[in-house]
């Protein structure tokens, strides 16, 4: 199963490293990363593989959200299906 991780927050050193380290601890494999700075905000989107994840997806979403809060970021993990459903016929 694939999930999309979105990270939004004030740009600073170590965001990618921090997020990727956290994901690695949950055994989440990063497949693709794209990032940009929009209106001063760091915005990153990652396509990830969560089949090997060592916690249920709902818990991963909650834990990553909490990790984001500690880093002053908004981190969201959502199943990819929802975006596919909305944007692809």
């Amino acid at each position, binding site marked *: 199963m694939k999930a*999309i991780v*979105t990270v939004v927050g004030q740009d600073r050193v170590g965001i990618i490293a921090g997020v990727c380290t956290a994901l690695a601890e949950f055994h989440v494999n990063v497949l*693709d990363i*794209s990032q*940009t700075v929009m209106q001063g905000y760091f*915005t990153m*989107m990652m*396509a990830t593989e969560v089949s090997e994840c060592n916690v*249920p*997806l*709902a818990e991963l*979403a*909650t834990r990553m959200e909490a990790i984001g809060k500690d880093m002053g970021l908004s981190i*969201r*993990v*959502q*199943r*990819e*299906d*929802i*975006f*596919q*459903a*909305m*944007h692809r016929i």
Partner: protein
Amino acid sequence: MLNQHDILQTLDMIDKRHLDIRTITMGINLLDCCDPDPERCCEKIYEKITRCAKDLVKVGEDIEKEFGIPIVNKRISVTPMALVAGACRTDSYVEMAKTMDRAAKTCGVNFIGGFSALVQKGATEADWKLIRSIPEAMAATERVCASVNVGSTRAGINMDAVAEMGRVVKRTAELTADNDGLGCAKVVVFANAVEDNPFMAGAFHGVGEPECVLNVGVSGPGVVYHALQSVKGQPFDVVAETVKKTAFQITRMGQIVGREASKRLGVPFGIVDLSLAPTPAVGDSVARILEEMGLEVVGTHGTTAALALLNDAVKKGGVMASNHVGGLSGAFIPVSEDEGMIAAAESGTLVLDKLEAMTCVCSVGLDMIAVPGDTSAATISAIIADEAAIGMVNSKTTAVRIIPAPGKVVGDRVEMGGLLGSAPVMPVHPESAEAFVARGGRIPAPLQSLRN
């Protein structure tokens, strides 16, 4: 592969435009709970509901987390209680309502629908018992919703039931006077009621439905409003296309959530109800969509045409996005639950007569409207009859959910709290319809009922 724009657009809809799944509603058949002993019947009802829906809230919350999309309500609808309780040796069905309430609390759902009777052509003994139990049931319970179908295109309008429902609504308001007649917010009088509606207060599990089923109601007035802001001044063809595209996206989300929930709960997926259901939150209003089309205030001339376009485009956009579309599907226009409608009603632009015209082209009917406390039962019945006639002739669902707020007069406001919002008390015509309502009998089905 998804691109950044798609992902950001979805997140923007959820964060800023109030995009959500309004409800996942589990329909449960209770016909196997019939029993001559009312106590035994209640036990069976409680056991069946809590068994079928024990995981509903948990599964809803998990899906919410995994998809990152709010599922605002988890609800239950059951077989019309008049059918279930009909075999019981008792004169009142208030105990059944209390049982439904208790089961709803155990399951953690905020509303349970199906304290209902279908009397469009005539009422059974059980139907009358249920109808007469409604006021006390609404006062004694918190989460139970009642509905009565008084008319249909096929059967005409049961005017005896219409007359009685006027009295029932009044009595319900009196018994819940401490809360401004809040009980009436949980009572809907229908014509052409649908059997798979996931939205409250009118949801019930029809007899043509399976043992247990999951229906989904989507929402998203804020998303449509935002989309229309990008086509300012353009012709209606463009407006309709924009609404359709947005409705498609919203419905796809409902479809995927419904499919996932039904898989996890092990119950069949029923339908997606493609409705634009507003909330009192700013930016989540159907009225503001109509105003965005170029009306200064909703309720002015042009409102009905704007609503007709919206209602139709929502359906056209949504229908391709789901394999089964059902329920009410269209734009809701509840006054108290829509920030723009509240403002328009308070300014005096939106009046009851205009709302009635709007119900000819919206998905349901006169919804969440507060009227003065001294409005007579006959006037309420006459309002119900008008609305049922619109439904009957146009082969559409119509409904009346009206609150004659005790002690309130025009200009006052009725606070219902939460998603129910607050309703400005609107004036009704003072001239009497007493003699009209007192006739009773049945208004014959119109010619369009003869379709075979």
